[in-house]
């Protein structure tokens, strides 16, 4: 009922991002046009919308992979523009669509990446990597010494989760993490995701174009279109009180 007293984990205030005009668009293209949102600690928010709607761009402003042209982005209350991007990124987990594993590194080395960047000693990082592999359901004895190319897509994605979690960051950004998987594997990973959610209580932002996935995994869903955030609400509120015709149509698609 009361407005949350705690500082939001992630916050965007009137954030815009305009790319310099490509040929034919003298004004430039607005990837984000005045987006504001606030995500509480421990919350999972899904961002949905058609490709090009700005959901990935918005996600990438949180770890400064994209710097907005206007507006303020805050992580744990601090404006990211005033934060060293390298340090910031090491405190935020990241899971891209295809895992983004470094192909020339063994699985354990991939998982150790951030701890090692943070200066952990090797043994501690290695122990941690094995814990993380266990956590995502990959037996370290079997997988730790393998190379990414020797794993299936689903297994690689699990490794990407393990890597994102390894340094125990409070926030994790996920960019279509299940996008490239077949339906069965996806379902399996959804379950894993939910388990992790329950045990770890991370703040997570999940970009997806799969509405069912968003409904299943997120506490709140943000619907985006052409760089604007049309509505940000829990799934049932989205169904019962769609903010406009676009949101309603989108939701109908989900059942169609």
């Amino acid at each position, binding site marked *: 009922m009361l407005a949350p007293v705690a500082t939001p984990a992630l916050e965007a205030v009137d954030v815009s991002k305009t790319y310099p005009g490509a040929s034919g668009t003298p004004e430039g293209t607005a990837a984000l046009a005045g987006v504001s949102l606030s995500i509480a600690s421990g919350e999972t928010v899904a961002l949905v919308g058609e490709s090009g709607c700005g959901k990935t761009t918005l996600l990438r402003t949180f770890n400064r992979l994209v710097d907005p042209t206007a507006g303020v982005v805050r992580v744990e209350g601090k404006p990211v523009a005033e934060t060293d991007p390298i340090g910031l990124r090491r405190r935020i987990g990241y899971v891209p669509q295809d895992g*983004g594993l470094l192909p020339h590194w*063994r699985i354990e080395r991939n998982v150790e990446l951030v701890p090692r960047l943070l200066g952990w000693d090797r043994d501690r990082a290695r122990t941690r990597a094995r814990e993380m592999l266990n956590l995502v359901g990959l037996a370290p004895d079997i997988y730790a010494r393998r190379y990414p190319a020797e794993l299936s897509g689903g297994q690689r994605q699990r490794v990407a989760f393990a890597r994102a979690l390894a340094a125990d960051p409070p926030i994790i950004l996920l960019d279509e993490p299940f996008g490239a998987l077949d339906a069965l594997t996806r379902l399996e990973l959804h379950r894993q995701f939910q388990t992790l959610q329950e045990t770890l209580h991370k703040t997570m932002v999940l970009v997806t174009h799969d509405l069912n996935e968003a409904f299943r995994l997120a506490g709140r869903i943000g619907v985006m279109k052409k760089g604007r955030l049309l509505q940000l609400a829990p799934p049932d509120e989205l169904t019962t009180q769609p903010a406009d015709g676009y949101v309603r149509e989108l939701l109908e698609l989900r059942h169609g």
Partner: protein
Amino acid sequence: MGRPSPPGPLSRPTRPPPRERGNACGAFCQSLGMVVRLRSPSPGEVGRGGGRGGQGVRALFGLLLFLLLSFPPAAHAADRIVVGSKNFEESRLLGEIFAQLLESRTELQVERRLGLAGTQVCFEALKSGAIDVYPEYTGTGLVSLLGEPAELGRTEAMNRVRSEFLRRWNLWWLSPLGFENSFEIAVPKELAERERLATISDLARISGRLRGGFGHEFVGREDGLPGLEKTYGLKFASVEHLQQAIQYQAAGDRRIDAMDAYTTDARLLRYNLVILRDDKNFFPPYEAAALVRGETLARHPEVGAVLGLLAGAFDEDSMRALNFRLQEKGESEAVVALDALRALGLTGGGAESPEPEHRGAGFAAYLWSERQTLAKRTVEHLGLSAAALLLGVLVAVPLGLYLERKRRGAESVIRVLGLLQTVPSLALLAFMIPVLGVGIAPAIVALWLYSLYPIVRNTYSGVRDADPRAVDAATALGMTPGQILTQVRLPLAAPIILAGIRTAAVITVGTATLAAFIGAGGLGEPIITGLQLANARMILSGAVPAAVLALLVDGALGWAEKALRPAGLG
């Protein structure tokens, strides 16, 4: 000035010096022709190979050894003298004669840099001190080097070049060797006898009925056919433009009636041609003499004295006969030079023949007998290639990385390097000469320039295109740009960069055969000499090892490419 050359079958060097009159172009154009021929083996060399490693280490070792032993300063040790020559038989023979004479009559250690690519190269080498002496012709000195009209008589020409070379460059023309090697007009002997032709004026009387066949350059130059026609009122029924080798053949077969030739070319004998007297002195005199650095003469006065023994030692007939042995019999200049010196009574009696003749033996036997020379050439070859490649890697990899960082303008820089690649090798070598002289340094620089493009190109695109999703994830997880470069992009690009280095290595090893044109040694040496002597075995003794070397280098680097490919990549 009547040329003392009796109208009679004349012989001359395959690649006559007068041809170089106007400028170095003649020499280079001609050499470029040779380049085409020389280059043709490269595609084969460039093919894939099957070799193993170790090559790199040995090459590096060879390089160090090479640099230690033979960098130009070494050639200037106080008691050494370097004899040069141009790249045709007569010039090589004279160079060899100078060298043998100096060896037998002085205490000096004599180094040979025979077969340099033409007048300009020799001249620059002499000026820079890379060589101490080489045989030159007065007409070439007058026209090509001084850029003066060739209107002087024999003695005046010699006096003119003597005073000017001394004044401008402290270079000394020693006493003339006694013969000229000039432009001439030659006709089949039978035609000359039937029509009673002794002079070019005689030829002019009947030229309306005759077919001329002239070299491309001779036809194009004002001091060639056009001037000749004006001076003598020549008007041939037809004029064909022919390659030199074909001219002789054509004249021998009576398909042409008159051609340009050189006084001492042995092929005049072989094809039964006679020279017509230049009774209006249209062609400048080309008297042969040793051209020596003044500093060398000051340091070693005995050089002037000993080479002075050759004053007037030859005439056109004797020179033609010597050229005949080189051109037609394929004898080596070492043997012919020794015989010539013996005949002149200038060498100590019973010197044994310096080189056994292998013409009867098989190729393998020939290779075996030449093994020491070939080993030395191979080391030189690898040294040149390795030095160029090493410098190429040291420059091109950082440059590729820098361009990848900057992006802006990267493509244009790479395009310029690509253009450089299209400059004919010999032209590039030629450009080096005014700046770096002759020898190893310019050869390495030229080879280095060729090595840049493939390495820069592959470094740039390899790093740029390194798995973008891995790079994105590495960025998103907080790796610094430096860490991303060294831990992600470079390892991922390594196979592509190595492929570029491999390409560069094969190009370098292939092109290094041309380094011999500017006196840098290597396996090109026997190829070039063999081409001039029309000695197939000698050509192959350079070409085959060069091809094998290219294959081995390619194979070794292919192996390295595999070995260094980061685990986990395909």
